């Protein structure tokens, strides 16, 4: 049941990404190209997603817990550290180069396009390297 719920949730996410244009690097890069071929569509993706999540979370988080698990697991860390800001800044640089973010690229694997597989392979390498370095530094 947990796995079915997880699958359907992923499917809704992947369908949303496909409809929204977030899986299309040309569209993503144009959103950030204010001085050139600007396409404001992605503001509507973020807007739609945040409004629905904001309202939905307020209803769901009133419950004592989730339907298929023991407790809500939401991050409680509130410190603004250099890792958060440095990591996010780096992510933006990569996103600005490639036009894919993880949430856009992973569903796009389903189209079978070779570029998506190349991006995800590089993504895996980056995640692996960062995890190795983080483990060494601990």
């Amino acid at each position: 049941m947990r796995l079915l719920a997880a699958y359907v949730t992923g499917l809704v996410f992947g369908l949303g990404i496909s409809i929204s244009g977030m899986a299309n690097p040309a569209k993503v890069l144009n959103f950030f190209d204010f001085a050139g071929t600007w396409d404001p569509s992605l503001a509507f993706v973020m807007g739609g997603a945040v409004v629905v999540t904001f309202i939905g979370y307020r209803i769901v988080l009133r419950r004592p817990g989730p339907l298929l698990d023991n407790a809500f697991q939401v991050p409680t860390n509130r410190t603004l550290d250099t890792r958060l800001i440095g990591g996010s800044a780096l992510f933006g640089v990569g996103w600005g180069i490639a036009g894919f973010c993880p949430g856009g690229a992973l569903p796009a694997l389903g189209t079978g396009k070779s570029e998506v597989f190349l991006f995800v392979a590089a993504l895996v390498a980056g995640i692996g390297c960062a995890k190795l370095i983080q483990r060494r530094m601990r």
Partner: protein
Amino acid sequence: MPLLLINVSPEPLSKPGMKGLVVITEFTPATSALGGALIGLAAVMMMLFLGRIMGATGIFSGAITPTSQRNWLWRVATLAGMISGPLAYLVFTGGFPVIDVPISTPALMIGGFIVGVGVTIGSGCTSGHGVCGIARLSPRSIVATLTFMATTSLTVYVIRHLAGAV
């Protein structure tokens, strides 16, 4: 920076909708908002069913570097659902979503590597920080989102307008 060159041809391509290799995309407020609403619905479903954040980074990292079976299986199932998304789109519309990659393969892979490092150190990406975190009014996610939106814009500006790529 030859790796980052977007348009290497001095003359614009004559193909409609193309300006060099920079693809001109159509403004799609309705479908983009609808897709965004579905992304939000998925975030709410994830919280309702499993009590988790619907962040692509956390789910993907947990799926490729498993810690325990209980923490691994639901992430793999979510990932399988995400990858099925374009197939559902195919069923509804009769075609796959458009994917135009207006950059070279080396640039795509360098970008992918940097994204991987960044989201791991920064603990999240557009879905985890940008959607779920902002909806929770998390100060960390708001700062993270403002940071990556700024550096993404700056990167696109530098590549397309300062490096003379377009």
